[in-house]
């Protein structure tokens, strides 16, 4: 739940409670006051009547039967509510009545007098008073809620801006976050802390990247010496005397080769990140795919795989030749490596989509992690697990969209690269 919605909810709950209690209290209060007023009027009339009687005057005749009646039979004394039929409007009208006993004069029987007052007008007054008060209260509460919403929206705007900046942040652009300093102190501090954090991140990332690049480069020369000398050592005739010696050397040679390939891959990755491949020439991707498939034909044959190339003629695309080569090589090699014997490698190339698919066993794990460095499907594999990282890096470099898909029917894995037009 949003912070704003959460605070607003409590605010609304409080308002509704206050509103309910307030209207109850207001109603009861006004009602009470009005009734008091009516009762006081009735009491005054009673006193007037009693004074009138005390002067020896007889009980007046009942002129307005609704408001005054007298009876010789006893009636319940005191105040009470009653409903009387209004003869003009033919509806029951609530009345407040006061009944009291008057001692009759000499030789006269005591009488019970009832004074009444209609409550219709007072009800209307009540409705008008309470109604207007409630409307006012509602407007006030509603106004406060709206104002609160508006204000918090405005006050939290820097926070949302920061959040959007963080979400769109890409460490590989080598730029620290540039967050503004908003007027609200807390947000200003937050932005400052985040900017500082991103600066440190960029610096760390930068030094790590340089380290990788330097390490990869500096090891190539010793590796070149090792490899060349091992190969020369393999030519020594004396090796024939010991059957175990040559295979041992060959293993060493193979390991050296693996190490240097690993370094080349790492170096390539860091150079792509550095944006060192700005040269671009128009390339015919379809021809390149055909060339690569031809080059990898022995591997396909060895695994009994059939290549299916569906290559629509596409206009030349401007890419770095080395990167294009590496992209296709790694995509195809990946499809060969994770294939099943007797399977196929299918390449679809259209104007703006390159798709490489192959059958293969279900791969457990999160597909997004396949693109991580040193991610191997088979831990014992000789491959260092950098192929798809390189593919991803090249796609990111050119802004191509790369996606992976597994279709259980036919157990096909598909890697799709959405190329830009033109």
């Amino acid at each position, binding site marked *: 739940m949003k912070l704003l919605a959460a605070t607003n909810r409590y605010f609304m709950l409080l308002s509704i409670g206050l509103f309910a209690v307030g209207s109850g209290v207001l109603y009861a209060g006004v009602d009470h006051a009005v009734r008091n007023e009516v009762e006081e009027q009735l009491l005054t009339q009673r006193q007037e009547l009693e004074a009138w009687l005390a002067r020896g005057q007889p009980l007046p005749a009942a002129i307005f039967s609704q408001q005054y009646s007298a009876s010789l039979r006893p009636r319940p004394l005191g105040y009470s509510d009653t409903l009387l039929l209004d003869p003009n409007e033919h509806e029951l009208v609530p009345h407040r009545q006061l009944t009291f006993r008057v001692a009759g004069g000499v030789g006269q029987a005591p009488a019970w007098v009832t004074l009444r007052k209609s409550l219709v007008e007072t009800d209307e007054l009540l409705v008008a008073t309470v109604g207007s008060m409630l409307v006012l209260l509602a407007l006030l509460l509603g106004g406060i809620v709206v104002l609160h919403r508006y204000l918090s929206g405005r006050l939290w705007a820097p926070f949302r801006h920061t959040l959007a900046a963080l979400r769109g942040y890409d460490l590989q652009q080598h730029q620290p976050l540039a967050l503004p300093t908003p007027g609200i102190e807390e947000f200003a501090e937050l932005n400052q802390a985040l900017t500082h954090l991103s600066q440190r991140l960029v610096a760390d990332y930068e030094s790590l990247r340089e380290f990788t690049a330097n390490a990869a*480069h500096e090891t*190539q*020369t010793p*590796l*070149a*010496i*090792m*490899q*060349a*000398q091992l*190969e*020369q050592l*393999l*030519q020594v005739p004396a090796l024939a005397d010991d*059957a175990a010696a*040559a*295979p041992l*050397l*060959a*293993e060493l*040679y*193979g390991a*050296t*080769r*693996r190490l*240097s*390939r690993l370094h*080349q*891959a790492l*170096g*390539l990755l860091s*150079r792509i990140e550095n944006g*060192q*491949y700005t*040269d671009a020439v128009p390339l015919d991707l379809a021809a390149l795919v055909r060339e690569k498939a031809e*080059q*990898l*034909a*022995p*591997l396909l*044959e*060895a*695994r009994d795989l059939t290549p299916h190339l569906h290559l629509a003629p596409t206009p030349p695309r401007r890419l*770095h*030749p*080395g*990167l294009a*080569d*590496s992209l296709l*090589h790694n995509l195809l*090699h990946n499809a*060969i*490596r994770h294939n099943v014997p007797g399977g196929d490698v299918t390449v679809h190339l259209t104007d703006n989509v390159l798709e490489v698919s192959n059958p293969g066993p279900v791969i457990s794990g999160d597909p997004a992690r396949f693109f991580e460095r040193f991610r191997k499907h088979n831990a014992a*594999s*000789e*491959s260092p697990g950098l192929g798809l990282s390189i593919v991803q890096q090249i796609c990111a470099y050119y802004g191509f969209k790369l996606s992976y898909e597994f279709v259980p029917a036919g157990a096909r894995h598909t890697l799709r690269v959405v190329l830009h037009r033109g």
Partner: protein
Amino acid sequence: MKILLVEDEAALRSTLVDALSQGGYVVEVAASFAQAYEKVKLYHYDCVLLDLTLPDGNGLDLLRVLKADNSPAGVLVISARDGLNDRVTGLDLGADDYLAKPFHLSELNARLRAIIRRRRFQGQHHVAFRDLLVWPEQAEVLVRGEPLTLTRKEYDLLLYLLANPGRVLTKEAIAEHLCGDAVDAADSFAFIYTHLKNLRKKLQEKGAENYIRTMYGVGYKLSVE
């Protein structure tokens, strides 16, 4: 055939000299840009093996000098620097070929031979080995005068062996030569075996001697004995 090796790393330089001399080349060395500059100005070479990272200069400048002088020498760039960019720049500047360090010596041999063949004989040159005669330009193989039909990869394999007579070729080197680099070794050994078996069979059918030796656990060798 005379070769100038421009390489500043002493250990690598001496190993390369050994290997190239075994391959029948006359090798001169230069350890710096200045030495190399002097030598290419004074002498003629069939091919210059050029390292790009030199202590006192950039190998690409030497390549520019050679091209400006219209030198007939072929240029094979060997570099430990960023492979993809140097390859493009080097080839743009007119280098004949490019090899990223570290490389297989047998691959270096094969590339050198191809360059010299193209340069010196304008391609009109054959490779002869015992009863074999190969015309690389026409991709034609003759066994005792009879044409031999090979698949593309079998032919590449044969030519690679012929470029390195008497040398042990590792499986890695063969695999990378046939499939381009960055091919998993484990994946590729099976196909090398298949192609070699087929090649041997075809050679035998034409009555050629079996001079492709299997070096157990290592690779293969074209025997000269």
